[in-house]
C-alpha cells in the first residue's frame, strides 16, 4: 500500500518532467519569452520546494532564505567575476557555506516561537543585506557584474539562446524535487512531519528534534543556495538588494503557501500560477505605469489567503471533494 502510493505519484512526476523536457524539442515554445517564463517557473518552483523542506514539511516559517539564496549566488558570481573561474565549484562552496551558516544561525533561532522566530529571520536578512552592502570584497553596493565569457555548460552561460538555461533549470528542478521526494520516503522525511505535528511527542519517541530541524534547515539552505547560483548565472549580475532582501525571502514563502504548504506539488503549482501572473501582468499592464499589476497581485494574495489558506492544493482538494460528492449523489 505504502509503496504503491508512491509509485503512482512518481509516474505523474516523470510525466511532468518528460513533458517539460520535450517542449523545446517539439518546437512548442514559440518565443524565448515563454521559455523565460518556464525557466522562472522551474527556478522559483525549486526555490519554493527548497523552502518547503523547512517551512512546509518541518513547519518552521523562516523568512531568512534569501540569505542562503544570496550566499549561493555570490558563490557562483565570485567564482566567475572575482576569480575568473567556472561557476560550478563556486556554487558548491556557496551551497555548503549556506548550509553551514544556516546551522549556526538556526541553533539559537529555533529556541524562539511563532512571531519571535519569524521576526528574528527578518532581522537576519536585514543584517546580511547591510553587511554585504558594505563588504567590498564581495562587491559591496556596486554588486558583481559578469564579464563576457565563453558560452556553454562549463561556464553555465548562454547569451543568444535560452535552451541551455531551460535544460539547466529542468535539471535543477529534477534535482531539488528528486531530493525532496527521496526525503519524503526516508525516515528523515517522517521525522520532519513528526516534529511539525508535535515536537514533544516526537521527542518522547526518541526523535532528536533539534538535530532534525537543524538538518532540515541545512538541507533547505543548501538547495536554496544552488537555486541562487542558477539565478546569478541567469541574470549576469548579483547585488545584495537583488538576492538578499525581504522581497526575495517573501517569494520563497509566498509561492509555497499559495501552492500548498508541506505538499510535494504545492511549490510547483504555486510557481506555475504566480510566475506567469507576475510576468504577464507586468508585460501587459506594467508598462502603463502606476503599479496596477502589483495592485492586482496584492489583491490575489489577499483573496487566496482569505478563501483558502491551504493554497491551490487546498482548492484542488475542495474541487475533488465536491465532484466526488456529486458522483456519489448521482448513484
Amino acid at each position, binding site marked *: 500500500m505504502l509503496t504503491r502510493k508512491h509509485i503512482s505519484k512518481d509516474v*505523474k512526476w516523470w510525466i511532468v518532467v518528460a513533458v517539460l523536457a520535450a517542449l523545446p524539442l517539439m518546437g512548442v515554445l514559440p518565443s524565448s519569452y515563454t521559455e523565460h517564463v518556464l525557466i522562472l517557473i522551474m527556478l522559483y518552483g525549486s526555490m519554493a520546494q527548497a523552502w518547503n523542506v523547512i517551512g512546509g514539511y518541518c513547519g518552521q516559517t523562516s523568512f531568512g532564505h534569501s540569505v542562503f539564496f544570496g550566499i549561493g549566488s555570490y558563490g557562483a558570481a565570485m567564482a566567475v567575476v572575482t576569480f575568473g573561474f567556472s561557476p560550478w565549484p563556486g556554487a558548491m562552496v556557496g551551497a555548503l557555506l549556506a548550509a553551514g551558516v544556516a546551522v549556526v544561525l538556526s541553533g539559537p533561532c529555533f529556541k524562539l516561537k511563532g512571531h519571535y522566530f519569524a521576526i528574528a529571520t527578518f532581522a537576519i536578512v536585514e543584517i546580511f543585506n547591510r553587511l554585504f552592502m558594505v563588504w567590498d570584497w564581495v562587491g559591496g553596493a556596486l*554588486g558583481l557584474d559578469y564579464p563576457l565569457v565563453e558560452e556553454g555548460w562549463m561556464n553555465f552561460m548562454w547569451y543568444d539562446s535560452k535552451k541551455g538555461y531551460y535544460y539547466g533549470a529542468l535539471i535543477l528542478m529534477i534535482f531539488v524535487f528528486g531530493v525532496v521526494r527521496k526525503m519524503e520516503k526516508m525516515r528523515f522525511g517522517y521525522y520532519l512531519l513528526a516534529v511539525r505535528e508535535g515536537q514533544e511527542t516526537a521527542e518522547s519517541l526518541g526523535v532528536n528534534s533539534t538535530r532534525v530541524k537543524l538538518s532540515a534547515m541545512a538541507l533547505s539552505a543548501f538547495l536554496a543556495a544552488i537555486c541562487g547560483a542558477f*539565478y546569478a548565472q541567469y541574470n*549576469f549580475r548579483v547585488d545584495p538588494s537583488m538576492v538578499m532582501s525581504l522581497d526575495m525571502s517573501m517569494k520563497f514563502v509566498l509561492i509555497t503557501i499559495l501552492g500548498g504548504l508541506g505538499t510535494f506539488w504545492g511549490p510547483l503549482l504555486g510557481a*506555475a500560477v504566480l510566475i506567469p501572473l507576475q510576468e504577464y501582468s507586468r*508585460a501587459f499592464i506594467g508598462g502603463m505605469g502606476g503599479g496596477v499589476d502589483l495592485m492586482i497581485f496584492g489583491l490575489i494574495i489577499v483573496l487566496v489567503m482569505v478563501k483558502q489558506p491551504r493554497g491551490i492544493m487546498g482548492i484542488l482538494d475542495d474541487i475533488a471533494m465536491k465532484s466526488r460528492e456529486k458522483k456519489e449523489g448521482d448513484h
Partner: protein
Amino acid sequence: MKRLFIGRTMVAKLFLTLFLVALLTGGAVAAEKVIKIGTLFPLTGPCALAGQRCQSAVETAVEVINNSHPEIKVPGAAAEGVLGGMKFVLVHADHQGKPDVAKSEAERLIDQEGVYAIIGSYNSSCTKPASFVAERKQKLFVCGCSSSAALTKRDLNRFFRLAPTDETESLEFVEFIKYLNETKSAGIETVGLIYENTEFGKHAAEEGKAAAGVAGLKVIADVAFNPGATNLNSEVQTLKAADPDAVFGACLGGDYTLWVRTMKQMDWLPDVALNYCTGYQDPIIAKQLESDGDFFMGGTGYSPEFAELMPAVAAVEKIYMTKTDPSVPFDSDCIQEAIATLILAQAMELAGTTDYDAVLKVFNETEFDSPMSLGGMVVFAPGGQNLKAMSILTQLQGGSYKKIYPLDLADTEPVVPMTDWGSR
C-alpha cells in the same frame, strides 16, 4: 482512490497552465509601417518618480518625431515620422528598479515585442544587464541618464549614453573648488561625502573620492546611509563632527529633503554643498524646500533657467509638461532620455535606412546636431560615451537654478560660503 483523483486534476491543471502560457505569447505580431521602440524605466518601487518622468520625456520626444512640429527647432521635428513617414511606436516596460527584471524585460522587448531599440533605464544597475542583453541580441540601446562611468567602459558596440558620468561631474566639482580657492580664496581643503549606499551612490562617492584625492583635497568624512531612511540624524551629526569645508552629496528624492532639513535642524552647513544628479535637480523638491533648498549646488544638464542657452527646448518642454502630473519642467535626467530618442531618430534619418549597420555607422561617426543638449552637440566615443556631454554647475538662489560654472556660461556669482540657516 481519492489521492489518485486529485493527482489527475493536478496534472490536468498543470498542462492547462502550460498551454495558456504558450497561447498567451504565441500570437504573432503583424508587420506595420512603424518602428517599435522599447522604453525600460522603474515605473514602480523607490525610483518610480524618476522613472515615470523619464518615460514621459521619451513620449514627448516621440510626439515631436511622429508629428509635424515646424515650430520646434530640433532636427526631425518638422517632418512627420522618420524616413519619409515611418512612425515611432513605444512599448513601455517597468523594471521596478530590479536588475533581474530589467534583464528579462529587455529580452521581452526584443524577442517578444520585436523592438528596434531600447531607451532606458535610469538605474545604472539595471542598465548594465539590460544593455548587455541588447548587445548580445544585436539591438541598439540608447541610454539617457544612467550615470555610472563603468557603463561606457565595457567595450559594447551598440550602447550609447548621453548624460555626463559621475566621473565627469566629480572632476567638475573639484575643478570648481580649485577655482573658488584660487580666485575667491575660499580655503576649501577638506571634503565630506554623503551618499545612499546603493550602486548609484557608492559609485558616485568613489569617483568623488578619486577626484578629490587627485586634486589634493582631503576626504575627512565618508557617510554612506541606507536609502529610504527614517531619519538622517547620525549621518548629519557625523558630517557636523568632521566639519568638512565641502560636501559631495548623492541623496535621492525623499532622502535629499530629509538631509537638507536635518542639517537645518542641527544648524550646520558646509561652505559648499555639491550634488550629483539627485533630489537637488528635482524642480518640485527645490520648490517645496523653499528657502531651505537655497545655496546648494550641483551639476545640472538642464533647468528652465537655461532657456536662453537652449532656446529649442521651450517648445518641447511645453509638450512634456502636459504629460506629467503634477506638471513639471524638464530636469537634467529626463531631458537626456528625450534627447536619446531624438538622436535615435536623427541617426536613422541620416542613415536613410533602418539597417542596423548603417545606423550604427552613423552613431559612431556623426557629430549630431542636438539643440536640446547643453553644448548643442552629441558625439559618441568608442564604448558609447557622449563626448560632448556636459553639465553646468548651478546654485539654487531664491528658488531658481543660477549658472555659476564654467565661467563662460555662468551668469551669477556663487554664494560661498553658503548663507547660514539663521540669516536666511
